[in-house]
């Protein structure tokens, strides 16, 4: 039967296949580029078992490049999904974990945890989570019950961000090993300090993806307004709570492993909304795969562009994302 309804299943398959291929290509690029000169063909050789894992090339591949690409992919997916969820919950297309100051709160929490000498998990991750929930609560409180809710939300986020940035530098300045490198890591995001031992913590964000994916339809209904969603059988309070907790948790983990990487949650959902519409059943997988590929490629630029060494990946994402934010703000006000 030919009808006018978009086929969710077909879009889903198409998105998964296409973006899966894009992610695979990005990952191969990411795995083959680096200062050590382990080339694309050598990478393939390691992957296809023709080079042993204990060779130099094998060690570089398994211990350095693969964890790094896994980190970029997972953080990218997390941040893109985080943006998508906050945009749906707040019904504001400009909301994003970094812009709202939630990433900043998580970073402050993580630094406090590290300074206190806690274990990365659950100690540091938990305090980072509390930090993100605290800033989230404050930003929501600031924006609640105003006619200009959308703008005061962004304004509250910007101030929260500035405050958290100052706190980050303050805390690092107080600590004994205060290095510029560390400040840069937290403020601009940096994927280079990650080690393969942190992989289990990194992958602990995956269940959060599943939770969000399950709530795709309620998220669609929430976009049309809380009362609309409630009238359509959505338990608005429960869904909102679960989504906020799952998102804050995964963003906190991403932040404690990679610092403040901004605007991924703005750029990726926006591109896919333009291409695919607003159905979260398609948007969520698209943002996961697309966000992963995007941050791998941004990280590639961060590694390849500087003449010597590399730069924090947050510089790349901000140089792409901030102008887009300004453009969207300008368009929304017209």
């Amino acid at each position: 039967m030919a009808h006018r309804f978009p086929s969710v299943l077909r879009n889903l398959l198409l998105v998964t296949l296409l973006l899966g291929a894009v992610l695979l290509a990005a990952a191969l690029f990411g795995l083959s580029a680096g200062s050590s000169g382990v080339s694309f063909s050598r990478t393939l050789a390691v992957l296809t078992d023709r080079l042993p894992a204990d060779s130099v090339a094998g060690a570089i591949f398994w211990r350095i490049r693969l964890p790094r690409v896994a980190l970029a992919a997972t953080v990218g997916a997390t941040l893109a999904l985080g943006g998508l969820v906050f945009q749906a919950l707040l019904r504001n297309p400009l909301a994003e974990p970094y812009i709202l100051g939630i990433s900043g709160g998580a970073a402050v929490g993580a630094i406090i945890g590290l300074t206190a000498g806690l274990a990365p998990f659950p100690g540091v991750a938990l305090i980072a989570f509390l930090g993100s929930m605290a800033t989230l609560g404050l930003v929501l409180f600031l924006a609640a019950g105003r006619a200009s809710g959308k703008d005061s939300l962004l304004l509250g986020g910007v101030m929260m961000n500035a405050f958290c940035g100052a706190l980050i530098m303050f805390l690092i300045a107080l600590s004994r090993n205060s290095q510029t490198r560390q400040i840069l890591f937290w403020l601009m995001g940096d994927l280079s300090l990650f080690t393969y031992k942190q992989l289990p913590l990194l992958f602990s964000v995956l269940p959060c993806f599943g939770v969000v994916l399950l709530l795709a339809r309620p998220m669609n209904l929430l976009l049309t307004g809380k009362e609309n969603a409630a009238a359509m059988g959505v338990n608005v309070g429960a869904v909102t709570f679960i989504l906020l907790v799952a998102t804050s948790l995964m963003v906190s983990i991403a932040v404690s492993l990679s610092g403040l990487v901004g605007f991924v949650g703005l750029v990726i959902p926006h591109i896919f909304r333009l291409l695919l519409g607003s159905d979260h059943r398609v948007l969520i997988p698209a943002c996961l795969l697309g966000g992963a590929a995007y941050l791998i490629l941004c990280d590639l630029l961060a590694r390849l562009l500087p003449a010597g060494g590399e730069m924090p990946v947050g510089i790349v994402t901000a140089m792409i994302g901030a102008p887009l934010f300004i453009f969207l703000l300008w368009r929304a006000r017209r």
Partner: protein
Amino acid sequence: MTAGVDVRSLQIAYGRTPVLRDISFSVPIGEYFVIIGPNGTGKTSLLKAVAGLLAPAAGQIALFGRLAAAYGRREFSQTVAVVPQQTSSDFPFTVAETVLMGRSPHLPLWGLERERDYAAAEEAMRFTNVYHLAARRLDQLSGGERQRVIIARAICQQPRLLLLDEPTAALDPAHQVHILDLMERLRREKGVTILMVSHDLNLAAMYGDRLLLLKEGEVESIGPPHQVLTADRLAASYGCPILVDEGPLGGVPRTIPIPEKFLD
């Protein structure tokens, strides 16, 4: 006989401030029931209470012979659909997607729509004459088209009770009549019970089987239009002289608020 809506001694309060006091009324299945009254008398609160969006401070609401509180969340939204005053969104859903959302209460959490869901959505869109707009985005439509889409979504929900909050407030006279004719057809062809809040006394009189006049959170009068819409009652409720005469259409009362310059 079971009623579509049965409200008993309902009280609603925002914090400590009571909005509705001791409201009782009953709407038979298949009736077109209109709630009227001045601004701020709690019309919308009453509608939201029946929609389950506002918890009563006291009293009971029963729908089709069962307490509203006894319904499961999904079951409730399979029974009751709400058309709000206005719908706006920054997110670009298409008309077809919006109407299909009406199937949500009938589908599992992550179920994909099936052929019969598409069929229900198509029928609803044809009913409100928006099928030709199916691929358009909601934010590209006029106010009247958008309201027809939202009504199609409510119809797609296949409710037994339809709650309308001033569905025609932002529309021109032709669109007002068109939308309310649709409601009348829905009631006639599908036996849907309709509960509507309206500011327009003339439309209320023409479409409503019975009216409920609210005044300061209490029921001032319930009954057929010619009983409720009397000059004395309206003047007392609205605090403004209102002329009532027999209208040219089927003897339905016609009301005209009287401007100061015509008073003497």
